[in-house]
């Protein structure tokens, strides 16, 4: 972050060799373990399932036989009635007009009843859901003892699975840091997986399940969708009072993101205090129903329905409202109707904000940034995450991982990030493992010290800034920053990205190729934690959490996106608008 670090070319061959040798070591460990025998399905359960199935099938067969015999009887009756007259169509002739009239009467009756019955149906469905939710919440505690008792029957992973976990974790990190390709990572981890399965050390069914997902977009990598140059953001920055299920809800609209073929309106909702205290289980359903009924119309007479994505909890909901199709370029405004609120006018013809954006090369290595991010997390939480028994050699995850990266040549003994990790360990009174014992502890950067000192700050301004700025491309990704929400204990930033890789996740480790941070005009530094996000086909909607709370005296904020090679900074005036 602050201290410069070497930016040597990665030694790919050394890293790959290390990983392949690690695979050999793990295979050796696994071979020393007993073979895995998957538990069999319990016989009584299987018998009950078979009996139930055969009864079901017997009933179905009986019903089919009954229907078939009825049809046969009516057919033979019709034949017997026709035969004496010698005119096969005689009895059927008057039927069509009668049938037609009956159908018409039914149709008109249905049309008359449609309105009231539809609302009745909706009400009945809503009541049913509410009752169902109440029953679930009421009966949940009753099931707890049973669930607790049967917990020991749950799936126990084969012991050798930990060998695979260790390799996959290290390989995942090294691949994310650009030292090996995704294909090499797949080869190495897949090779060990197959080797373990071939020796019956892991459950063969797990191997097959794993294959099911191979090549699916759930595995990050560079986004398949190229960064779109036409992505633009329109600031909205409006607040509306609405109502959901008889309760007040306050909506704060952020920005409208318009891309080729899609438009997303970002918003945040705060539920009123009475509602948050109300523990009615159906409330979440009511919110989703209401948010799915958001509509919009433009000045050209087009109307839009869309879909809601997002979610929330007792107090707050984050909302992405997807309009389809996007408003045409000629449209000048859009009226958005939120649940129980008057229409909010969104101007589409506003000029983009003139914000200062700078781009510069990155001076730190990806490995250093990764370790720094983990060290900051460690310092913020104040405690080391320890793995399950034997999963990661019984060492704290971060120390274990740092040792592996050092051995793989991804970082060197004089790497600034390792020295900072040693300083963090000393600050927390933790001993480094023997592999890292030679690392000289450095001073913690001033930024980190400031961040830790302000960790408990609770005086952040309450408001929103609709930033709405498109950043220049960073290492293949294009981002549009939506709005910044600030609260007493922190801030969050909505970002929509194209060409964005899904991050690696290994347990509690979150490995990203990009790093968000911020710095205010007073010199205060802010770090983003993992936050939340949704990823699809190279697009991502991120909800980044910044800690600590933004200083109430800050007037501008530099939001910084750091990639592998490029760093982009946008300076945002903190003109707080009323939010929630």
């Amino acid at each position, binding site marked *: 972050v602050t201290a410069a670090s070497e930016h040597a070319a990665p030694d790919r*061959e050394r890293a*790959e*060799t290390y*990983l*392949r*040798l690690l*695979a*050999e*070591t793990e*295979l*050796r460990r696994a*071979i020393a373990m007993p073979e895995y025998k998957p538990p069999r399905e319990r016989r009584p359960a299987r018998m009950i399932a078979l009996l139930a199935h055969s009864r079901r099938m017997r009933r179905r067969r009986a019903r089919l036989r009954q229907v078939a015999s009825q049809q046969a009887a009516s057919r033979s009756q019709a034949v017997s009635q026709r035969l004496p007259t010698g005119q096969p169509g005689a009895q059927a002739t008057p039927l069509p007009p009668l049938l037609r009239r009956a159908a018409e009467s039914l149709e008109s009756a249905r049309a008359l009843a449609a309105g009231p019955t539809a609302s009745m149906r909706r009400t009945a469905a809503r009541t049913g859901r509410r009752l169902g939710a109440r029953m679930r919440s009421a009966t949940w505690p009753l099931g707890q003892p049973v669930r607790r008792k049967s917990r020991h029957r749950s799936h126990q992973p084969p012991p050798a699975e930990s060998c695979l976990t260790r390799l996959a974790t290290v390989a995942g990190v090294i691949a994310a840091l650009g030292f090996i390709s995704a294909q090499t990572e*797949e*080869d*190495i981890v*897949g*090779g*060990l997986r*197959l*080797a373990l*399965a*071939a*020796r*019956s050390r892991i459950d*063969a*069914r797990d*191997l*097959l399940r794993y*294959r*099911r997902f*191979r*090549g699916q977009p759930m595995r990050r990598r560079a986004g398949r969708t190229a960064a779109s140059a036409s992505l633009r953001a329109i600031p909205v920055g409006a607040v509306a009072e609405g109502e959901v299920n008889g309760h007040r809800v306050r909506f704060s609209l952020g920005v409208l993101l318009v891309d080729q073929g899609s438009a997303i309106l970002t918003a945040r909702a705060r539920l009123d205090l009475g509602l948050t205290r109300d523990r009615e289980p159906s409330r979440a359903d009511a919110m989703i129903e209401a948010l799915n009924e958001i509509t919009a119309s433009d000045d050209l007479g087009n109307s839009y329905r869309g879909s809601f994505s997002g979610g929330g909890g007792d107090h707050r909901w984050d909302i992405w409202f997807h309009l389809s199709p996007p408003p045409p370029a000629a449209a000048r405004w859009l009226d958005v109707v939120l649940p129980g609120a008057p229409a909010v006018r969104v101007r589409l013809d506003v000029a983009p904000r003139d914000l200062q954006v700078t781009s510069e090369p990155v001076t730190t290595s990806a490995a250093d940034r990764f370790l720094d991010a983990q060290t900051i997390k460690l310092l913020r939480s104040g405690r080391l995450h320890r793995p399950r028994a034997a999963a990661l050699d019984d060492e704290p995850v971060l120390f274990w991982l740092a040792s592996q990266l050092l051995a793989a040549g991804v970082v060197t003994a004089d790497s600034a990030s390792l020295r900072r990790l040693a300083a963090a360990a000393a600050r927390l009174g933790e001993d480094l493992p023997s592999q890292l014992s030679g690392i000289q502890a450095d001073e913690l950067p001033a930024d980190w010290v400031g961040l830790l000192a302000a960790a408990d700050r609770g005086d952040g301004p309450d408001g929103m800034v609709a930033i709405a700025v498109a950043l220049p491309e960073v290492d293949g990704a294009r981002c549009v920053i939506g709005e910044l929400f600030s609260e007493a204990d922190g801030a969050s930033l909505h970002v929509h990205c194209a060409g964005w890789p899904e991050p690696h996740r290994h347990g509690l480790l979150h490995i990203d190729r990009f790093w968000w941070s911020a710095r205010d005009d007073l010199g205060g530094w802010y770090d983003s934690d993992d936050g939340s996000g949704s990823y699809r086909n190279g697009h991502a909607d991120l909800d980044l959490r910044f800690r600590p709370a933004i200083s109430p005296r800050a007037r501008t904020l530099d939001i910084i996106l750091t990639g592998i090679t490029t760093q982009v900074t946008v300076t945002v005036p903190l003109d707080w608008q009323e939010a929630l």
Partner: protein
Amino acid sequence: VIPTWWAAFAPADTSLRCGDSTHRLRWTDGALHAVDHPDAEGELVLAALGGDATPCLDLVIAWGRRSDDLTVLAVGPRSADDKVTIPAEILGWATAVSGAPPGSRGPGNPQARAVSIGGTISGHQPAARKRTYAFRPGKARRLASYGLASYRGRLRPRPAVGSGLVHGWTGFAPGGLAHLLGGGETQEAQAELVRLLALGSAFQFRLSAAVAHAWSADGEQAARADRARPALTAALTGRLAPAAAQWLDIDLGEVQASIHDGDGWGELELSKTGGTGRLHARMPVRWLASVWAPGLAVVDQHLVVSVVDAAWPTARVLALRSPGSDPVELSIRQDKGHWSVTAR
């Protein structure tokens, strides 16, 4: 004169269900013999043109394709004690992905483990032995011509069935595996590998030897060996370690191996720190193919480092009595699967 890499290997035989008959397959002289398919070339051409390949030839093609696949070294056995027994579920999956005909293989079939075939390259075989299957991995070459039709390039086994499987479940594979289909080349490659490893221990070592040879200095992939150095280093370490542990009674983790590129057999050095020995070795990739795979690594407390001459079941080898000593020439002989010294 360097002996051929397969010179110390015994022939390997097995049988498999092929159509309505039980066929014999033989691996010998580094090549694959579909003994009961006298017109193997013709059948291969038909298969390449979309006809049904027989189970024998299906496996032959798979063997040829995997003969330079480094995944074989990642998955295959590390020593004679390392038993690689493919579980029935995985073999069932592999059979389904490869599009093998129903009933020919699979977990429900008693013949599932009895499939055998082997071999990698030809060119050394007498022309009269028509049954010899020829396949050169990695390179397009004319395999055969049949009437007006000819085929050039790498064969893909049973394209019609294979492509059908990619798009849908055809119902002959074990139930519950339909979701696996739709993989791609990697999946097909791994499925082929699984089927080949299921042939049994003798074939696992022969396939490993073929791969190691392909990446050795006189192999077909020698020009690309630099890129494969990490995988080859790991393969060498993983196989030298059990041999060295048996030879010197040291811990498996205390063996550090690297690839020797120059002439000669390489070098070995034992360092001792705090009572534990650590072996540093530089060996050529050829050692894997010509020494380790035929089971010559340790003979009568000697570590064999190279083969001087071999004609199974006898061989003359260079071996070390201890690290740092000069290699001595030994005459050895295999009897009942075990190599022993006959003359020093």
